[in-house]
């Protein structure tokens, strides 16, 4: 049923971004085996879509499908882990910039161990974790994250800012 044209587009558009897709799914689901299931589902969805869809930005497109598949998959298989995004985007109350931070804090952040960084990101609320992974690891632009997540650019910016505040707070404290 799948046409040769779709398969060839799949090889060209999806396969180069499997690592990206797997990374996003891994951080969204928190589990390697769940991430494999999600990426396989997402691949099948992508293959079907490629019968008719023209793709301009493959990385963003693949990650959009991966994110949506992950949310659907978690709602179905891990309902206890799905957290509502309601409330996370309330009025942005970022702290006023404080006095110049002691450089010790900046040093602590810069020297944070890999393990600490991974743990801090894993501890972020789902919506923030997703945004920071798409930005910092998948390298998507604000516009691409907004499109992938179905939220306005302003919301992307405030989620990223909050995620970064949380990460700086947890990594900038002496252990």
């Amino acid at each position, binding site marked *: 049923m799948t046409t040769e044209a779709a*398969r060839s587009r*799949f*090889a060209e558009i999806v*396969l*180069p*971004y*499997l*690592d990206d*897709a*797997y*990374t996003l799914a*891994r*951080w969204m689901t928190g589990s*390697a085996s769940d991430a*494999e299931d999600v*990426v*396989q589902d997402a*691949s*099948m969805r992508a*293959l079907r879509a490629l019968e008719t869809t023209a793709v301009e930005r493959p990385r963003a497109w693949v990650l959009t499908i991966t994110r949506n598949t992950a949310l659907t998959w978690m709602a179905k298989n891990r309902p206890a882990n799905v957290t509502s995004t309601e409330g996370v985007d309330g009025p942005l109350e*970022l702290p*006023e*910039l*404080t*006095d*110049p*931070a002691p450089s010790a*804090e*900046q*040093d602590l*952040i*810069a*020297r*944070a*161990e*890999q*393990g600490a*960084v*991974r743990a801090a*990101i*894993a501890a972020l609320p789902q919506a923030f974790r997703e945004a*920071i*992974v798409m*930005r*910092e*690891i*998948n*390298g998507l*632009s*604000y516009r691409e994250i907004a499109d992938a997540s179905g939220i306005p*650019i302003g919301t992307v*910016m*405030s989620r*990223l*800012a909050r995620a*970064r*505040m949380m*990460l*700086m707070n947890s*990594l900038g404290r002496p252990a």
Partner: protein
Amino acid sequence: MITRDVGPSDDLLLLQALLDGELDASGVIDMERRIAADPRLAAEYARLRALRGAIQGGALREMAPASLRARIAAATGVPADSTSSNVVRFPDTTARPAAATSVRRWRAAAGAMAAAVVALVGVNVYLVSDLGSNDLERAAVAAHSRGLISGQPVDVVSTDRHTVKPWLAGKVPLATTVVDLATDGYALSGGRVDVIDEAPVPTLVYRHREHVISLTELAKGSARPSAPTRETVSGHSVVTWTDNVRRYVAVSDMPPPELDDFVATFRRAAASEREDSPPKPVK
């Protein structure tokens, strides 16, 4: 495009947009001037840059496992890509599009050249700090870190090498040298399969006090036997060596002399295990 027509409480968003390369040229110039004039902004921007450095060094990027690629190939009828995407990608050489984009934009903005220079210096420091380590060691450190974070450094939990060895034998093409070092203070806690350079490889996990040691065994290939050499990769001690049979990479957060001692202990036990083959019954 992000507008600059915002109030002072949005400074953090603007700093972040600068960091992310999302400001246009005039916006970059504007923010650079403000940062130069305002120590509070400068300090916050320095913290944001430090965070980016920590994230980029955090081995957060995962590789799609070979098993997943195989499943997808089977399900779609599209053979797994054997070229670009199968090249093992490492976190510190990829996923830096933001930096690349920013540098391009900065170049377009003459007034922001100073910022570009700062950014490039930052990247260089980063690379220098990793000098001397190679992809294999970084991959081993990434796998070790993943295991710790997931709370599951082992796929098969067992202190019995006669359990661990056959389990690994069913998963990887290499026969694994598994030795019991409990009497030397290094308790076997299990094994897992890592994927390095697209090949599944066996990794043994030992514990020493509160520390975890990952020991990965690889096909020797054409490598010649070499004595253990130690270096530091992203805060972890890494010791690599090659014997007549295998190439080994040991990773731990233990103090370096203790990791050296572990390696020496393992090498002695592995050598005597091979001489004693078939192995004597364990006590």
